[in-house]
């Protein structure tokens, strides 16, 4: 049973496609890296998966999952860091699925929250306002919230950008832990070394799928060259898409 089905999906903004004619599926429990140059449509694809962007064409199926079974860590979270909220309270919002509008946070939940904060190495920071954290610490907080969301599909958009080696190592260990728990993880990444060493499956994206499969087979210089040459076309006067020309060319 696949966790994710793409049926000829086209995603974009204002009728202009950013991801063109993607088909395929992600197996349950897979650990997938999505790579490609800036503007390749990685973020757009992930936004489509979590449902905050509706496909222009085609469809994405979550394999019976509710949208709330998906945890999403955006690339540049629109977080208001000046808002007076503590690390503990912020992380606890990850329990939304269980608590909803009114659900209380009892002792069990408190324990879960403290464990999630400990899992990302931030014990002792519970009462700090989020505005006082460094970039790396904030990223750890966001990972702690993903831990609490307890989602079967986890979508991470460039989670290790501007993050130092130590933090990256810690958080990558967490990602592999999720993989070990049987969760499906998709991550948009730029570090080819990391993809090669830690991710079993890779999707090379360049506005359309260039290659998709086991990392060792897909991550070839040829495929990366194709992805690099992708033109970032955004033609105001582009004609309506005739169908599968771009998809077949990429495949």
């Amino acid at each position, binding site marked *: 049973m696949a966790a994710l089905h793409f049926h000829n999906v086209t995603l974009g903004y204002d009728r202009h496609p950013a991801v063109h004619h993607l088909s395929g599926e992600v197996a349950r429990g897979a650990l997938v890296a999505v790579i490609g140059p800036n503007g390749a449509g990685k973020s757009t694809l992930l936004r489509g998966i*979590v*449902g*905050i962007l509706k496909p222009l064409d085609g469809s994405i199926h979550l394999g019976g999952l509710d*949208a*709330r079974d*998906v*945890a*999403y860590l*955006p690339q540049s*979270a*629109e*977080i*208001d860091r000046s*808002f*007076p*909220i*503590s690390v503990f309270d*912020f992380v606890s*919002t990850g329990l*939304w*699925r269980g*608590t*909803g*509008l*009114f659900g209380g946070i009892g002792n069990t939940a408190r324990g879960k929250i403290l464990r999630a904060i400990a899992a990302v190495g931030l014990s002792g920071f519970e009462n700090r*306002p*989020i505005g006082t954290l460094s970039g790396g610490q904030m990223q750890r907080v966001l990972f702690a*919230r993903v831990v609490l*969301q307890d989602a079967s599909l986890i979508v991470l958009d460039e989670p290790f950008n501007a993050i130092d080696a130590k933090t990256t190592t810690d958080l990558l260990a967490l990602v592999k832990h999720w993989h070990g728990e049987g969760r499906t993880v998709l991550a948009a990444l730029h570090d080819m070394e990391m993809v090669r060493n830690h991710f079993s499956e890779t999707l090379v994206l360049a506005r359309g799928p260039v290659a998709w499969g086991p990392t060792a087979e897909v991550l070839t210089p040829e495929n990366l060259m194709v992805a690099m040459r992708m033109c970032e076309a955004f033609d105001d006067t582009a004609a309506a898409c005739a169908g599968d020309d771009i998809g077949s060319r990429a495949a």
Partner: protein
Amino acid sequence: MLYDALIGPFTEFEFMRRALAAVIALALAGAPIGVFLMLRRMSLVGDAMAHAILPGAAVGFLLSGLNLFAMTAGGLIAGFAVAILAGVVARSTGLKEDASLATFYLASLALGVTIVSIKGTNIDLLHVLFGNILAMDDQTLLVVAFNATVTLLVLAVIYRPLVIESVDPLFLRTVSRAGGPAHLAFLALVVINLVNGFQALGTLLAVGLMILPAGIARFWSRDLTAMICIAVVAAAVSGYAGLVLSFQTRVPSGPAIILVATVIYIVSVLFGRVGGVVRQLFPGRHLEA
């Protein structure tokens, strides 16, 4: 002597007691709303909404004279229409909330002024503009208290999504659909409290008892719950001191309340524990860690 100055007016005159009750109700409901307005960077939205209400109140006034109930209804309708239209436009298109609100409140204001200039006189309308908290009758006081109660109940319901939407709107969108309704409910609360305030302070100053206490609270705490409590206390103290000031001098009550709040605000800017000017100028020796 001190008793005569500070408590005497309230034991002696019923209208002062009514005014005090009204101003405390306004503080309890309006100050928390103000804190959220400030944290969501919507302080001036409150001001714009106050303008949007004016024509509705004016129409109510023209239809049934100086009846605060009709004016409240008119204000609510105008305010809701503008708030909801602006919210819907901002959410369904890419337009920012402030831009779409500006359009609608200006249209509302223009419409209101047109109606008034065609049909009305403008002497009693001064009352609408600046309010008169000393002329509260039973009915008005009940309306104010009722609105305050509704505000606190609704705020309790939407508190959690409102907080999450303020910190991390994208996250709320991925886990829940409560963000949109919570935001619209919040805008509605802003309108209710503005209408509530203009019976006491007038349309022009109503927003003051919401925003000034919030600004004061920002200088004393980094915790949301504490900020809300401080804002409520600051609003109530301003209201009480303003009434006393107005009673003892010839300063009109509405402006007196806002002026007292302003003084507290200035003191907070100077001496506040969180980011106050004095703290910044003389921060003390830096810490070990």
